[in-house]
């Protein structure tokens, strides 16, 4: 295609080459997302869960802690869509409210992980030297403990509760973000544009925030998204072991834990929360994969 630029003796024709394909570049991400059915499915699941969590009080018939002792251990029926648990609480209601715990834990833990891991990773990657050394040794020390065991230990010491769970999960969750950020920084540090920015007199902070950061954001967003199902699963595991949220707050992991002993007969008690955990994790993972595909730098090259 052709265009003109002002020239000495009048407009000069310029050949701008082939126009960019439709859907390429940053602006075309929505189109690319739509073309990826798995990502769409993941996004739909996540949207559905967010809806469950937000609309819980309006889409459930009773409070989640309303015990109805005459209706214990009932199988799914018209009166109770997913049956009832050991003390007659409506299981459908508890499943819906369980979404709140899972999503709060998932999003908050990763938000903390990002808030802690990103600055530390940037500091390690860009500043290098002693800062890098200290931060990486901290990472190595924490990595020596298996994540679930460490979370268990923290929960045993601190006792059950949502705040303690977030602490227990966050303690490990920032590490992958930090490492990734640092690796990306180390790569970008050698690029010409950083050199150019420095040559033009930009200070360290400016180099980091205005030049390096926008270029490494894509993989970090992906890592944060993919870390959400990890956090949700850790919370489920802790609650399954009885070290998670406090009763009567419903948590899918805790419901599985209670239901597992009855699985040979009252199958609904273990099945539904397990399915929810699996679907949630699959949804976030697919979404994360989709986000990765969408922000893939190769798509920007056309």
């Amino acid at each position: 295609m052709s265009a003109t630029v002002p020239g000495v003796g009048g407009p000069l024709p310029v050949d701008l080459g082939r126009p960019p394909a439709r859907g390429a570049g940053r602006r075309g991400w929505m189109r690319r997302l739509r073309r990826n059915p798995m990502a769409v499915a993941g996004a739909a699941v996540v949207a559905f869960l967010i809806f469950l969590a937000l609309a819980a009080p309006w889409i459930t018939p009773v409070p989640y802690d309303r015990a109805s002792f005459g209706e214990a251990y009932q199988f799914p029926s018209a009166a109770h869509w997913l049956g009832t648990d050991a003390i007659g609480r409506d299981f459908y209601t508890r499943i819906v409210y369980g979404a709140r715990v899972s999503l709060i834990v998932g999003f908050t833990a990763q938000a903390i992980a990002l808030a802690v891991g990103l600055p530390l990773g940037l500091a390690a990657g860009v500043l290098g030297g002693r800062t890098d050394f200290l931060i990486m040794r901290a990472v190595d020390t924490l990595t020596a403990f298996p994540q679930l065991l460490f979370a268990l230990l923290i929960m045993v010491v601190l006792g059950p509760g949502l705040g303690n769970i977030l602490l227990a999960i966050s303690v490990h969750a920032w590490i992958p973000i930090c490492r990734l950020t640092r690796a990306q920084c180390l790569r970008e540090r050698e690029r010409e544009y950083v050199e150019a920015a420095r040559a033009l007199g930009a200070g360290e902070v400016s180099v980091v925030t205005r030049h390096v950061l926008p270029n490494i954001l894509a993989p970090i967003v992906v890592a944060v998204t993919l870390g959400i199902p990890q956090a949700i699963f850790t919370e489920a595991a802790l609650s399954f072991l009885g070290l998670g949220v406090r009763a009567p707050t419903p948590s899918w992991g805790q419901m599985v834990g209670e239901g597992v002993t009855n699985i040979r007969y009252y199958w609904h008690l273990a099945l539904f929360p397990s399915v929810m955990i699996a679907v949630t994790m699959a949804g976030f993972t697919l979404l994360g994969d989709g986000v990765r595909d969408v922000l893939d730098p190769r798509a920007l090259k056309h």
Partner: protein
Amino acid sequence: MHRMRMPRSRVWVAGLLVALVVFGPGYGPAVGAATVNSVGVALPSDAAPPSKQVLTLIGREGTYLDWSKTVQKGQWMPGLMSDPLVMQDYNSDIKPLAAARWAVSQDGRTWTFSLRPGLRWSDGTPLSASDFVYTIRRMANPETGFDVAWYFSAIKNFKEANEGKAKLEDIGAVAVNPTTLAISTAEPTPYLLMLLSDLYVVPAHVVAKTGDPWSQSADTAVSSGPFKLASWERDKQLVFVANPAYAGIRKPYLERIVYKVGQDQSFFPAYLSNEVDAIPWIYEGPLGPSDLARIQSDPRLRREAHIWPYFQTWWIAFGGDQTAFKDPRVRKAFAMAVDRDAIIKSVLRGMAVPAYGMLPPGFHCAQPARLKGAQPYNPAEAKKLLAEAGYPDGHGFPKYDLDLRAASPTIQAAGEAIQAMLKQNLGVDVGVQNLERKLFMDRLNKYDLPLVVVPWEYDYADASNFMNIYKSGGRHPWSNADYDKAVVAANSTMGDAQRCAMYRRAEDILVRDPGAVFLWHPTVTQLWKPWVKGLINKTNKYGFVSWSRPSKADMPPYIYIGNEKP
């Protein structure tokens, strides 16, 4: 002329065949010799051969197999390796065991036991009265850390020695000579024999040398009981074999007992897949509501299940004067806010009867009908009382945890049920916390738990077993001088009618104060494979089949494996 004679070889063959038919092994039993196992016990005619006389069980694992060191953390079945002075038989009646006979002094305070002659430990050392003295002193010795020392406090100076106020030598247990033991009690104690049925004697000569770990390995675990420890693989299994040196009166049919170590949830599947021959009943039952539903719906399992109301009581206990439960109105409010019938119907699936008092129905001195209306479910009255105590609608009530002791999911659900009832009826918020057993008991004994749900399972069929729990200084902080007086007096009265009247008076105080909120008495389900035979199939005088105290190993010496075992 050759053909007329039979070949020589054929004659021999014919003769051999005849001999085989007449004298061959297939005719063994018919000739009359019963099969005898390795310790000389003749097996019944429908028993499997000795090599198949193996009983496989599954259960939790303990620290030591030594009930003079620890009961609550101890490994089950001490009765396999140790014969107490007396035993409780199938009807819960006292019968002689290591002691051949005994006599009580005129004042009722001294009991003299004559040991059966010839009893010995599996390493050949004779069993002596001094072993019993040693065991009693070991339990009382504060250095041992015995966790139910109060159980034997009827013995003179036992409690004082345990608290460091008296010497071990002052305890009322004396070996008059190697076969005569004299036990003195501070007050006349009519139920002493019941207590002594749980005195699992340990080998003084081994324990003094090896210390606590003596019971953990086959090399040092010498036995005076019908079995002895052949191996103990931690987290895997314990194997007991029939003790050839045993000279007592309950020689077993079984050659071996294999006790597999497992988690509660694995017991029922193990039973269903024939990996074990029985499910020994355990606290709160390894069978959950869904397993019970499964058993009810399967005719074969229904035949193998033995269900009876058990002598066990569950109740809510309160913290002491530093908690809000100092005020009896608060305790009464809690008592009237809990609907025990609803819990039984929902969480327990009907496998329990409501408890109105401490003593279970059918137990010595029990009269539950008398207490039925004493702690009724009355949420309106409960609310009023709580408001009077200064917490209208639960406002300002401290946030406590309802603590459970190593609870199964069923009991956990019961805890949540109580939590829901307190919230709905009183507006009080309690958390539900499931504590590991040792941690729970340590804190309970220190009066550190404000609100708990605890069970008590009977050890012997005498009201004192239950009523002694709430004597001052026991495991709960509630204390009432009139209660103490009544129970102590009943404990040392020899006449049964008077004793029961006193225990009932004490029970009234406990229920109406209230010192505790009584919840339920569970029914027990045991499963035994059809090829396990013997005493297991008899009905006792209470109408129960396969009645026993599974943790003590009352049953194994009297059962055998039938020949239909696959």
